[in-house]
């Protein structure tokens, strides 16, 4: 237990007037807290309302692993979530899909880069976190790369009750499954008629962000989990292939890598998903940022950070060390 404590530190940043609380995972050779020192950092963004540990505490696992490989990692709770201050927007999904968290995260990234003397930050965003990652990267000079797991590029609308019931029916009934297949065949025909143009509910602002980043040559790694009735990275028949479309748009200068992770689910929290995300991300980081993050030494020593104790923050996250005779701070 103690070793893990030595590699982590609770931190907070004051971004756009909001106290964001999070965890900093020190690099393997920086367990004394001397600082990250001009490396590439990794910032984890969760899919939505869950705390920064992510499902099954998978983000903790990835951050520990990547920090051990030389990439200082940061996990923060967004405003109103987890331990951070602030309020959750009433229409959260709409807010996320419009890039609502972009400005606050850009400010947080700027602070992290300065405070930890980083050369830049790679954002690892999952699902809605991937949407936020794209918007943030487009507005932050300090974001140098993106890892997106199961991103989506459409504007989800609330499903009606009838639609929910039909969906449930198709999952257990053979007739329902047949009706569902026919429905998706019709959708496929409509796609062909539209000549593979993005559907009406496409998040055009997000597509523009992708296009801007990809064409500027920002390294991006996209990982996809299997989804219902789909084959590899391709969506099920009748659904628009956003990744294929974006790849086509990105041009020759783009540095986009797409991986399919077999044997996992959307959360990537299981053993297979965890291992795959770790392995692909580590390899991709080494390939894209290896020269920057490599042999750095400890010559660059920023002032020790004593965060999680910002004056603005009345709540104090802390680590208590348990021992049989009691607890000491």
């Amino acid at each position, binding site marked *: *237990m103690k070793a*893990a*404590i030595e590699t*982590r530190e609770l931190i907070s940043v004051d971004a756009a007037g909001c106290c964001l609380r999070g*965890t900093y995972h020190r690099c393997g050779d920086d367990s004394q807290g001397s600082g990250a020192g001009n490396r590439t950092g990794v910032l984890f963004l969760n899919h*939505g*309302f*869950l*705390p*920064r*540990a*992510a*499902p*099954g*505490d*998978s983000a*903790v696992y990835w951050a520990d692993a990547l920090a051990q490989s030389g990439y200082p990692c940061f996990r923060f709770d967004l405003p*109103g*979530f*987890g*331990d951070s201050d602030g309020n*959750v927007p*009433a229409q*959260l*999904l709409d807010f996320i899909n419009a890039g609502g968290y972009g400005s606050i995260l850009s400010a947080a990234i700027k602070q992290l880069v300065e405070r930890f003397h980083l050369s830049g930050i790679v954002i690892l965003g999952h699902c809605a976190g991937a949407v936020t990652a794209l918007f943030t990267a487009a507005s932050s000079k300090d974001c140098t790369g993106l890892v997106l797991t199961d991103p989506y590029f459409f504007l989800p609308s*609330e499903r009606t009750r009838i639609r929910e019931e039909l969906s449930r029916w198709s*999952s257990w009934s053979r007739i329902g*499954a047949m009706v569902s297949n026919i429905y998706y065949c019709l959708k496929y025909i409509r796609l062909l008629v539209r000549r593979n143009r993005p559907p009406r509910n496409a998040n055009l602002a997000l597509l523009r962000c992708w296009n801007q980043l990809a064409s500027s040559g920002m390294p991006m790694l996209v990982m996809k989990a299997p989804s*219902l009735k789909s084959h590899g990275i391709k969506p099920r028949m009748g659904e628009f292939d956003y990744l294929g479309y974006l790849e086509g748009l990105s041009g020759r200068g783009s540095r986009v890598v797409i991986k399919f992770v077999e044997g996992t*689910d959307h*959360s990537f*929290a*299981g*053993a297979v998903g*965890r291992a795959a995300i770790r392995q692909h991300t580590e390899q991709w980081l080494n390939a894209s940022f290896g020269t920057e993050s490599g042999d750095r030494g400890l010559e660059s020593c920023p002032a020790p950070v004593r965060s999680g104790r910002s004056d603005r923050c*009345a*709540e*104090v*996250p*802390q*680590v*208590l*060390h*348990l021992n049989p005779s*009691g*607890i000491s701070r």
Partner: protein
Amino acid sequence: MYTVLHGVPNPVARVLLVGPFASERHHSYIPWVRWARYLAAKGMECLRYDYRGIGESTGVFEEMSFDNWIEDVGLLAGWLKSRSPEAPLVLHGLELGALLAAKVFETGVGDGLLLWAPPASANQALRMMLLRRISMDHAFKFGDERKPASDYLRQLENGHFLEVDGYQWSGKLWRDSFKFQMPAGMEHDSNAAPACRRPIRTVKLDKHAVPLIKGSSVGFEAINRDFSELFADNVQWIAQALAIDPTGRPW
């Protein structure tokens, strides 16, 4: 161990919040934090934490046992009480956390016990989580690919690990869960002081308490659910049970 202290100067009471278990932690986190802030605003200092091996706390989940987690509750309660021994201490548990809090309360720790949605046994709580995991598996599989629930149970009963929402449940955890039951006299709503002569309250939570407890689904629409009525009612109970005034004045 990861803890968050919602500090209050001169608190009228202290509350140790023993949260829900493993994957349930993540879904209930927002209302749980709001409850802690609500208590602090009423002059009650509270401490919330992550179980060893879960969330921000370190430790290997699959190596932990109910005994370890009970030990945590006891030690944290002692630490919180030591900050100002004159202020009464309430143990408050949610779901499986309620079981842990009740077990420690039974040993004489705490001046009051507040239980939200306590299961009769740890197995009941684990079984609900397992059923949700199975239904998720089934939602993405068809026909023969769907394993019956008995296959999952057999895996645990044979002492193997089973992955549930990213946590490796051990066969031992499953076996122990049958024996880990609510202490006698605390199983049901017992607002009247029971044999231990300290106030206890049990609050049942239904589907309207999602995401504080996990219902059939936890969607984005439930995130901002208003729990002010539940919070006010329970602060009122704490104040009355401990004869304190949540505004800081003598009761």
